[in-house]
């Protein structure tokens, strides 16, 4: 791969990152991504392999967070497509999903087999509660940059209330909330 000098903003040309490179890169992300894959993705793409520079990574990430679906999968689609078209996307997504898929099924089988043991029940109860906490922390981290005033706080609270407290179906909530949120974002600066 071409050496990037400091301040160089050009990323490697398309042919510099092969399908094999994409597969290896996203496989590495998949197996190192304990408890959240995103930090590892940045490390691999920007720091280790220099496929993207910081600005390009942020640009792609903002797209991937805007679109529905798992952010990391969206990122794999974008990076794959940039270097190798639709084949690149397919290879990257496969590399990202294949092993975790097997790990999950394997863990599921162990759970079915040993899930009734008292010690496993206890451990699972602890992990479940902690896993719920991790999701709350994730919301907090998203809020640090995404909630910047009264408007965004109201929109987030409305979404939370509708889904968590009123238990309305998420499709209807989004259908109602997104247009309102767009309108508010258009009208209010903060």
């Amino acid at each position, binding site marked *: 791969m071409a050496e990037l000098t400091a301040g160089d903003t050009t990323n490697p040309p398309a042919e510099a990152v092969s399908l094999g490179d994409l597969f290896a890169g996203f496989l590495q992300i998949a197996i190192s991504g304990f408890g959240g894959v995103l930090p590892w993705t940045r490390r691999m793409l920007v720091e280790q392999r220099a496929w993207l520079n910081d600005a390009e990574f942020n640009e792609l990430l903002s797209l991937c967070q805007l679109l*529905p*679906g798992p952010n990391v999968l969206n990122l794999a*689609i974008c990076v794959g497509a940039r270097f190798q078209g639709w084949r690149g996307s397919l290879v990257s997504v496969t590399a990202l999903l294949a092993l975790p898929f097997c790990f999950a099924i394997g863990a599921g089988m162990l759970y079915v087999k040993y899930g009734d043991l008292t010690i496993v029940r206890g451990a699972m109860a602890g992990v479940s509660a902690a896993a719920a906490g991790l999701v709350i922390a994730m919301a907090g981290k998203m809020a640090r940059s995404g909630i910047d005033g009264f408007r965004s706080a109201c929109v987030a609270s409305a979404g939370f209330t509708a889904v968590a407290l009123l238990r309305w179906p*998420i499709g209807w909530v989004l259908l109602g909330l997104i247009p309102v949120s*767009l309108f508010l974002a258009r009208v209010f600066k903060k």
Partner: protein
Amino acid sequence: MKPASPLGSLAYHFVLLSLLAVGGANAIIPELHRVAVEQNHWLSNSQFVDLFAIAQAVPGPNVLIVTLIGWQVAGIPGACVATAAMCAPSCLLTYGAQRAWHRFYQSPVRLLLQRALVPVAVGLVLASGFVLTQAAGLDWKYVAISLVTALVAFGTKWNPLWLLGAAAVLGAAGWL
């Protein structure tokens, strides 16, 4: 108009959910809970919570909760169908969008969309955390574990696996 076979039913639900996951897979947990536990009785409440915990503990994207639900409903084929149904629509959408993105990135519309959608995503992910905490059990010890984990994960850059591990040890030792 719900399909009768389990595989068809999985595909039907997750294809829809794929496009609703604004903020990623963790934004649709309340809806997954509704579909899998309340509507279709594929899982009990505690199975749902356990599978979510497994999905968090296993390395990889957090879409794995969908894989595990599919697996529980219809074995390996169920896992494949659920994962594919959850991933394909949003992946296709992203593939289409990334072509135009570079130009669009500079436009004020992009900024507007971002300012409008990020708070929505925050609300949904927080709702997921709330529903999961509730589903994990309203015993004060569980709630305390959830809140302490949330605070530590929010305030530090520790690998979350340590937190899951610590909670597992507390639970296995019978202190919960």
